[in-house]
C-alpha cells in the first residue's frame, strides 16, 4: 500500500439520514471522522500518541492522519520503520508503561507480521500475570476488498482476531461510529482492535452529538423488520441495507438489519432477540465462510434459538479464493446485493 486513497470510491454509502440534522449534528467523511476522533483524543489526554508506518510526513496510507504531524509534532505522531512486530510490540509495552498508544497498521494483511505480539503478548498479558498487567493499547487497521488490490491487500481477517479471548474487536460501519468509537476504545483498560473498511473512508455521514452514541459493545438494529434478520457489520452494512430496501420494494419482505459493531464480545442478546421475532436469519460477512465469524454467529443462533427458527440459517460470504485482481473476478468473489437477495428470498414464503 503506497498510495493515499484519495480518488473517488465505488459507492458504499450508508443511506441518507431520516431525520433532518440538528444543529449539533455534523456531516463529515468517515476519514475525517477517524481523524477528528484521534485529534480529540490527543487533545484530551497527553498520554495518547499515534505510531505506525507513514502516519506522519506522508499523512497515513489512507490519509487518516493527514495534518496531524503539524499539529502534534513527531514525538506524538511517530513514523515507524517497516517493522510491524516491533512497533505493535512497542505499542503494547508503551501501554503497560502508562501511555495510551494508537497504533496504525496499514492493512490487516500486514498485521499478520505482528500477529505474535497481538495474540501472544497483548491478549495474554493480563491473564499470564494473574491480573497484574492490563494492556490499554488501541490498534487500528484497514480491512476489506473492493479496490482491486489483489490477494495481499484485500482480505477481511477481523474474524480471526475475534477468535481470541482478551481482545476487544470493533468494526465501525458508520461515520458516527468512526467518530465515536475511539474514545471508549482508549478508555478500555484492555487491548482493542479497530477495523476500518477501506471502502468507507470516502463515505459521508452525519455525526450526532456525543450523548446520542450507543455504547460500543452493543449491536444496533439499523433497519427494523419482522420477516428476516440480516446480521452484518463493517463494510457489508451498506449493501445489506440496500438489499433490505430491495426486498421491501420488490418482494414485500421486511428485513431487520443488525450492525454488530463489536465482533468480540458479540452482543448475542440483540441478535437472538431479533431472530426470536423474525424466525429467520442470514449472516452477511466479507470474511471467508469456513471456520469463520459467520459460522460462529450461526452456531450461537442454532444453539440458543433453534426452536424459534422457521427456516435454515443462511450465510453470504466471500468466495473461498485469495482475492483476485481483475475487477469482474473481485466483484464475483465478494458478497453482493444480488447474493443477499438470493439467500433471503427462499427463506421467506408468502
Amino acid at each position, binding site marked *: 500500500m503506497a498510495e493515499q486513497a484519495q480518488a473517488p470510491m465505488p459507492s458504499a454509502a450508508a443511506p441518507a439520514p431520516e431525520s433532518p440534522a440538528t444543529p449539533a449534528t455534523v456531516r463529515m467523511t468517515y476519514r475525517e471522522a477517524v481523524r477528528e476522533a484521534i485529534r480529540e483524543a490527543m487533545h484530551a489526554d497527553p498520554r495518547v500518541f499515534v505510531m505506525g508506518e507513514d502516519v506522519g510526513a506522508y499523512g497515513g496510507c489512507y490519509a487518516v492522519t493527514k495534518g496531524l504531524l503539524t499539529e502534534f509534532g513527531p514525538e506524538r505522531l511517530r513514523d515507524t520503520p517497516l517493522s510491524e512486530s*516491533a512497533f505493535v510490540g*512497542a505499542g503494547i509495552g508503551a501501554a503497560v508503561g502508562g501511555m495510551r498508544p494508537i497504533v496504525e497498521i496499514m492493512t490487516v494483511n500486514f498485521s499478520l507480521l505482528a500477529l505474535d505480539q497481538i495474540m501472544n503478548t497483548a491478549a495474554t498479558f493480563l491473564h499470564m500475570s*494473574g491480573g*497484574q498487567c492490563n494492556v490499554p493499547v488501541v490498534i487500528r487497521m484497514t480491512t476489506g476488498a473492493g479496490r482491486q488490490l489483489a490477494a495481499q491487500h484485500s482480505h477481511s481477517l477481523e474474524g480471526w482476531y475475534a477468535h481470541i479471548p482478551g481482545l476487544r474487536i470493533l468494526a465501525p460501519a458508520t461515520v458516527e461510529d468512526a467518530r465515536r468509537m475511539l474514545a471508549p476504545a482508549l478508555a478500555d483498560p484492555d487491548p482493542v482492535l479497530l477495523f476500518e473498511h477501506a471502502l468507507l473512508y470516502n463515505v459521508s455521514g452525519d455525526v450526532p452529538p456525543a450523548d446520542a452514541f450507543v455504547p460500543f459493545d452493543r449491536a444496533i438494529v439499523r433497519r427494523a423488520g419482522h420477516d428476516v434478520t440480516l446480521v452484518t457489520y463493517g463494510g457489508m452494512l451498506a449493501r445489506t441495507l440496500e438489499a433490505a430496501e430491495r426486498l421491501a420494494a420488490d418482494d414485500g419482505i421486511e428485513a431487520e438489519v443488525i450492525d454488530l459493531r463489536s465482533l468480540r464480545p458479540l452482543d448475542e442478546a440483540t441478535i437472538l432477540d431479533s431472530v426470536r421475532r423474525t424466525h429467520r436469519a442470514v449472516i452477511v460477512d466479507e470474511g471467508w465462510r469456513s471456520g469463520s465469524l459467520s459460522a460462529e454467529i450461526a452456531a450461537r443462533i442454532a444453539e440458543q434459538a433453534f426452536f424459534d427458527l422457521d427456516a435454515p440459517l443462511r450465510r453470504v460470504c466471500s468466495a473461498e479464493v485469495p482475492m483476485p485482481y481483475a475487477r469482474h473476478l473481485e466483484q464475483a468473489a465478494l458478497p453482493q446485493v444480488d447474493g443477499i437477495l438470493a439467500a433471503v428470498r427462499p427463506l421467506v414464503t408468502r
Partner: protein
Amino acid sequence: MTVLTPPAPEREQDRGRAIARLTSMLRIRRFEERCGELYQDEKIRGFLHLYIGQEAVATGVMSCLRADDAVVATYREHGHALARGISADAIMAEMFGKVTGTSRGRGGSMHLFDTATRFYGGHAIVGAGLPFAIGLALADRLQGRDRVTACFFGEGAVAEGEFHESLNLAVLWQLPVLFCCENNLYAMGTEIAHEQAETDLALKAAAYRLPSWPVDGMDVDAVESATRRAVAAIRAGEGPHFLELRTYRFRPHSMFDPGLYRSADEVAQWMTRCPIATYSARLRAAGWLDDDTLAGIEQAAREEVEQAVTFAEQSPWEPMDDLLRFVTSEEVRHG
C-alpha cells in the same frame, strides 16, 4: 575484571557488595537445584528451564538497576526474578500452580510477573520480549523519566526478526534500553555456529550503531562493571546499549532435553569456570570470605528455598470458579 586488593576499612563497602553478589548467585543455584528435584517429584510441571551456570549474569545486571527500572526476561527467568527481589515464596508457588504465585498459577515457570518490582515476564516466545521492552522504554521517554529497561534474551533470539526490528527502532528513537544477550552457545540443541552467520554477536549488534560490548558472563564483577557503565550512559541520555554476556548453561535446555548435541567433556570444561566457585575462590584469596561466612550464606539460601517449598505446598489453589478471571479487566474487577 576487577582486581581485588586486601580489605582495608574503606574497602568494607566493596566487601559487602561482593558478598551480596555471591549470596545472590548461591540463592539462585540452590533454588534452581531444588526446582529440578521438584520436577522429578512432579510438583512442578510443564516446561522448566534452569539457569544453573548463568547466575553471574542476572546477579551482575540486577545489582546495577534502580527499583523504578524495568526488567523484561524470557522463560529462563527464575534467577532474574530472584535477583530482582521477587520473593522465593511467590516464585515457587507460581511453579506449583498455586494462587499465591506471582501470577496466581496462571503463568507457571515461564511467565513470572511482578509489577511491584517492574518485572514484566516471563516471555516464552523467543524474541518477543524485545519489542515489548522498547515500548516500556518509549513510555519512559515520552513521560520524561530517566528509567532504564533491561531486556534479557538468549543468543537464539538474535536470529529472530524481532531482534533486528527492535535494535533498529531503539537506536532510531534513542530509547533507554539495555539489551542483555545471554550467549550460552546453544539454542536448545542448535549450537551458535549453525544458526548465526556472524557468531560475534557484539559485532553484529554494533551494525545497528549502538555501543555494544562482549562481556565475560561467567564473572559477576565483569558483568557488574559493564552494566554499571552502560546503565549510567543510558540514564544520561546516550541511548540503548547492547551487552553480549558470554556464558554457558550447565544443565539441559529443559527437563525434556536428552543432551545429545554437546559432549560431557565440553560441559565439564565449562563447569571449571563455575561463576560461584571462581568467585568464592577470588573472595577467599582477597581475604573477604572464610568458611564460616560461606557456610552462613549456604545455610540461609537453603533455608529460604525450603521455606519457599513449604509455602508453596501449603498454599491454596485458585478456586475453579475463577477460571475465567483475568481475561479482561472487567473480569478482574468482578471476580
